[in-house]
């Protein structure tokens, strides 16, 4: 359930101007009788309560059902600590990689003209359109014992599947689009003139990147990293396929939640789930703050 919260975090919405227009238009369109208005609002509130708020409350209620002590001792279990540690490591690796790849891809797409660009943009979205389970299976096909690189890897004693590298790879694949997708429209809108100005003023390539390009896209970068991180920590499907579920070794938090739940250890399962739920809440708040900054950036460049 908590994983779904993280999954449903959406990409940058349409720009601020469109929203402002919508607000202006709303006043003139508000012609429905009050009863209908109230009914519609009530439906929305009830739906949200049942499908979003209630499950969230239940997660915390279950986690604390045997008291605070049981909650914290469940989190202090070696298995739980190992899962938290693994999740943090995997998220750090995949966010780091995707930050670099995303920046490079967005830079290439926004600042250069080349053939096959549309294809590249489509390719970036591939991880979103493929079921995570399939993404995981791809890595099994590549690196598994019967896979293309399986025997070579075994000969060289390199463990990818059922180990941290496999989990990190699968997570990186699944979360790749977030940073790139946050940056491409932003960088396309900003164009190349500021970079040209910097270079004609004598700045080197690195100076131009760190003094001009990066400051202009920093909110977009943070936004992409935030969503990428939320998804990386919450990823279940792809990781489940490549992890092997070795207790205390290759279980991430979402995987451990499932295992504990299947073993009827509800307090422990929901204690870990509550951590993921908190991550989701923090992500949502941070996302709102970042979107405000991004909108300000848009307004400033509107003139």
């Amino acid at each position: 359930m908590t994983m779904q919260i993280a999954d449903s975090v959406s990409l940058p919405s349409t720009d601020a101007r469109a929203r402002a227009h919508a607000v202006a238009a709303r006043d003139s369109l508000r012609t429905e009788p009050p009863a209908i208005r109230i009914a519609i609002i009530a439906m929305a509130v009830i739906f949200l309560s049942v499908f979003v708020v209630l499950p969230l409350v239940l997660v915390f209620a279950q986690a604390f059902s045997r008291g605070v002590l049981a909650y914290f001792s469940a989190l202090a279990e070696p298995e739980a600590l190992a899962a938290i540690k693994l999740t943090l490591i995997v998220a750090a690796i995949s966010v780091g990689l995707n930050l670099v790849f995303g920046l490079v891809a967005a830079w290439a797409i926004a600042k250069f003209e080349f053939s096959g660009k549309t294809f590249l943009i489509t390719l970036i979205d591939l991880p979103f359109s493929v079921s995570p389970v399939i993404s995981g299976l791809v890595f099994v096909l590549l690196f598994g014992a019967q896979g293309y690189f399986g025997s070579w890897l075994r000969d060289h004693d390199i463990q990818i599947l059922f180990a941290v590298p496999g989990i990190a790879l699968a997570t990186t694949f699944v979360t790749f689009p977030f940073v790139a997708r946050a940056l491409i429209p932003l960088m396309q809108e900003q164009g190349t003139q500021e970079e040209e100005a910097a270079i004609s003023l004598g700045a080197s390539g690195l100076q131009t990147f760190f003094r001009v390009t990066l400051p202009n896209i920093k909110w977009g970068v943070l936004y992409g990293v935030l969503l990428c991180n939320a998804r990386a920590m919450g990823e279940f499907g792809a990781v489940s396929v490549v992890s092997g579920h070795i207790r205390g070794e290759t279980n991430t938090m979402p995987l451990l939640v499932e295992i504990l739940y299947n073993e009827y250890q509800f307090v422990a399962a929901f204690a870990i789930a509550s951590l993921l739920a908190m991550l989701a809440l923090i992500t949502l708040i941070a996302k709102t703050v970042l979107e405000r900054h991004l909108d300000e950036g848009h307004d400033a460049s509107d003139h």
Partner: protein
Amino acid sequence: MTIEVRNLVKQFGSFKALDGVDLKVDNGELLALLGPSGSGKTTLLRIIAGLDWPDSGEVSFNGEDALAQGARERNVGFVFQHYALFRHMTVFENVAFGLRVQPRASRKDEPTIRARVKELLDLVQLDWLADRYPSQLSGGQRQRIALARALAIEPRILLLDEPFGALDAKVRKELRRWLRSLHQEINVTSIFVTHDQEEALEVANRVVVMDKGRIEQIGSPDDVYESPATAFVHGFIGESIELPVQVEGGVIRLGDRPLNLAVDGLVSGASKLFVRRHDMLVGPPGSGAFEGAVQHVRNFGPVQRAEVALSGGETIEIDAPRDRELRAGDTIGLKPRRYRIFAG
């Protein structure tokens, strides 16, 4: 700094942006590149700046090969049409940028940089905006800051790409005058690109008229206005009446009507007759080269603009002084005070 461009060619896909351009710019000149959009003027400017590279040809500064250097080394100040100010920096930091990114060995110390930026902001008369961000400035202010930023690196050449193109008419006029006096003050070799003939004629010492990647004419503002070298220049600069005529056996004909105009030195064949609107003198019917009926009259300050249907079938617009009021329905004679005929 003199600039010399020889046989420059640049192609974007199937579009020829520059088709063999030769140009010499003298030291301290304020030169205008004038032409319609797609004439190659901005491409030429960007190649001089090092922001674009030609397919072939040479560019040299003071006789040195400029194409051997990147934009970074050329020490050229570039002002963009849409300012391209660094939006996350204050006005002060924008102007200081070029000084701060210098290699450590040649970088000035902080007090020197501050003094220099202050001096430049004084020069563009915007020292009171030092702590603002670009988004808080008006278009005219932004463009002046962009100019101060470009001047901070003490450029050998100043290049301006449609510097006033994004501004409204009144601000544009003010800035034009200001740019001319600024150029007299700092006297750095400058080239600006514009599609606005009035701007080119008012600001520049010399005007280069371009069309379809080629230079049509180079000359003083008076030259290009008074003695256009080609049909394109005549049509593009000033408001002209253009009539298709036929030169044959010492006679110029409009349709089948012979015009009472001198034809010395003209090649026979289809030609184009150009007359400035205000060079058409109005007289009684039968007195001039053309006859026509006034269709419509509007008054513009000291002149009246009349739409006249010529008896040959063409309709033209003329600007006549208001000492003799024209009325719709009048039949008048028209005599060009000055005219030019170009073959083709």
